[in-house]
C-alpha cells in the first residue's frame, strides 16, 4: 500500500519530538527529517508492516549513518603515532576539559604510556592548582608557569620536555573560551601554531542543547577538530549533542564522560547512543 501523507507527517512529528527531547539540535533534526521524507515518499509498504515501524527503522538508519563516521580509534592512534604525540584539548567554559585530560592520563598510564601535561589555562582562578592536584594524584609531570604567563610558551616547554625525556604523550589543557570571542579564538589559533598538536580534541558538554552545533562549528573553523569528547552524560543527559556535533562537523565522538572519577571515561558506541536517543 502507498503511504498516506497525513499519517506520515504525524508519525514523523512524534519522532521529531523524541529527538528534540534528547537535545538534538533543530537544524540537525530538520535535515534528517527532510532526508527521511524524500526517501520515504512514494515508497510502498509491505503487508504486515506498520508505518511507524518502517519510519522508525529508516530514521534509526539515518541517525546511525551520521554517528558512524570513521570512528576515532584512540588506542591505535596512540600506538602508531610518532613520539611525542601532542594532543590539545579545547572547548567553551566549564565543559570538562581539565577533568577529561586527567581521565585520559589515567587511561594512558594503564596502557603503560608516559605523559606530560601542559597547564596552558593561565587565566582562570585556580586553573593551574586544579591541574596540579590531578597531576599529583596521577603522578604525572605538569609543566606550568605562573598565572598570566603565555600559554604558547608553556606548551612549547612541555613538548621540549617530552622530547628530551622520551615521553609518549603531551596533553595540553587550554582555557575555556566562548566561540564568539574573536580574541580568545585567535589566541587558541596561535597556541596551535606554536605547539603544533597532532590531535585536537573538542570537549563538549552533553547537557548542551542547540548551542553544541555553533560551538563545534566555530572550533572546527578556527583550529580544526580531530575528534570530540562529550562529558557529563551521567547527568541523565540524553546526549543528542553527540548527533548535533557529528552532523555539524563530520568528526567522530571518541569518548563520553560518565562521571567525575578517572575511570569514568567510556568509548563512544553509536548503538548505545541510538538506544539513549529513542528512550
Amino acid at each position, binding site marked *: 500500500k502507498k503511504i498516506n501523507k497525513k499519517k506520515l507527517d504525524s508519525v514523523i512529528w512524534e519522532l521529531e519530538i523524541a529527538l528534540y527531547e534528547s*537535545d538534538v539540535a*533543530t537544524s540537525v533534526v530538520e535535515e534528517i527529517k527532510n532526508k527521511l521524507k524524500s526517501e520515504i515518499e512514494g515508497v510502498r509498504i509491505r503487508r504486515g508492516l506498520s508505518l511507524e515501524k518502517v519510519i522508525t527503522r529508516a530514521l534509526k538508519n539515518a541517525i546511525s549513518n551520521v554517528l558512524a563516521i570513521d570512528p576515532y580509534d584512540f588506542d591505535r592512534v596512540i600506538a602508531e603515532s610518532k613520539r611525542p604525540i601532542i594532543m590539545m584539548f579545547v572547548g567553551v567554559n*566549564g565543559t570538562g576539559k581539565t577533568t577529561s585530560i586527567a581521565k585520559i592520563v589515567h587511561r594512558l598510564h594503564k596502557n603503560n604510556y608516559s605523559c606530560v601535561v601542559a597547564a596552558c589555562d593561565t*587565566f582562570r*582562578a*585556580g586553573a593551574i*592548582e586544579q591541574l596540579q592536584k590531578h597531576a599529583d594524584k596521577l603522578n604525572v609531570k605538569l609543566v606550568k608557569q605562573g598565572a598570566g604567563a603565555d600559554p604558547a610558551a608553556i606548551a612549547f616547554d612541555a613538548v621540549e620536555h617530552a622530547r628530551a625525556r622520551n615521553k609518549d604523550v603531551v596533553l595540553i589543557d587550554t582555557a575555556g573560551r*566562548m566561540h564568539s570571542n574573536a580574541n580568545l579564538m585567535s589566541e587558541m589559533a596561535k597556541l596551535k601554531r606554536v605547539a603544533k598538536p597532532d590531535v585536537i580534541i573538542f570537549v563538549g558538554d552533553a*547537557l548542551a542543547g542547540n548551542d553544541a552545533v555553533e560551538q563545534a562549528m566555530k572550533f572546527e573553523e578556527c583550529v580544526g577538530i580531530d575528534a570530540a569528547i562529550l562529558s557529563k552524560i551521567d547527568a*541523565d543527559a540524553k546526549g543528542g549533542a553527540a548527533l548535533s556535533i557529528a552532523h555539524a562537523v563530520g568528526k567522530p565522538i571518541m569518548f563520553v564522560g560518565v562521571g567525575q572519577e578517572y575511570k569514568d571515561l567510556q568509548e563512544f558506541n553509536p548503538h548505545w547512543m541510538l538506544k539513549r536517543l529513542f528512550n
Partner: protein
Amino acid sequence: NLGESLRNTLKKIAKASHIDKNLIKEIVRDIQRALLSADVNVKLVLKLTKEVERRALEEKPLAGMSGREHVIRIIYDELVGVLGGAREVSLKKHVIMMVGLYGQGKTTTIGKLSKFFSKKGLQVGVIAGDVHRPAAYEQLAQLGEQAKVPIYGEPGNKDAVSIVERGLKKMLKKDIVIIDTSGRHSLEQDLIDEMENIYKVSKADERFLVIDAAVGQQAGPQAKAFHETVHITGVIMTKLDGTAKGGGAISAVSVTKAPIVFIGIGEHMDDLEMFDPPRFISRLLG
C-alpha cells in the same frame, strides 16, 4: 536562521487583511522551531504555542493594532508570563546558597556577587562549601582576593556541612554570606542529601540556581530536582556572552516559579547584569 523564518511569517501576517487559521498554524510552527532552537523545554513549547494559537484566533486585536502586532504581543505576553519579570536582590542582612549542575559558573558568579554587594557598601563573607572539586578552595581564595572579600574554607575536610556551620559562626558580623557548593546532578543521591543538609544547617535565606545559557532539555528536570530539595528562590543564568539563547532559563523558571535575578555575561568580576526580560526575549526569538 529561525529568527528570520519567524520574521518572514510575521510579514505574511502583516500583509494579510485578517488572520486566518492556516496562517496561525504556520506561525505557530515557526514559533515552535524558534523556541526549540533556543532550548526551551519541549512540553513547555507545545503548551505555550497551543495557548498562542488559541488566543490569536479568539482574541480581537486592540484598536489600531495590526494582525501582526497582535500575534507578536501574544507571544511576548506568554513568554513574560512564564518568566514573571525580573526581581531585585535584597540588600538586607542575609545568607545566600549557590547550587547547580557541574561547570555552570557557581564559583565564578560568587566572585561577581561579592564585588556587587561590596560596591553597595555591604560586608561580604564567602564559605567554601565545595569539598569535592580539586582546588575548589584555591579557586575561591583567588576570587576572594580579587573582590577583597574573606573566604572561609577548610581544605582537606570532606564534610561540607561542618565547614558551613563553622563558617557561619565566623561570619555572624557579615551583611551577606554566600555559600559555594559543588556541582551535582539529580541522580547522585549522596550529593543531593549533602545539599539538603547544607540548606538545613545554614537556613540560607536565598537559594540561587546557577544555570548555563547553553543547557538544553535537562534544564527543566534538573531545576525541578534542585527545587524539590532546597526550594529555589532565584535563578542566575550565566554565559549569555556566548551564542546560546538561554531557553533553559525559561524552563527552569517555569518549574521553580523562581525569577531570574542576574545574568552572567563574561568571565571577569564585573560581568554581572540585572536581568532584563524584554532584551532576553527578543534575543531568544532571534
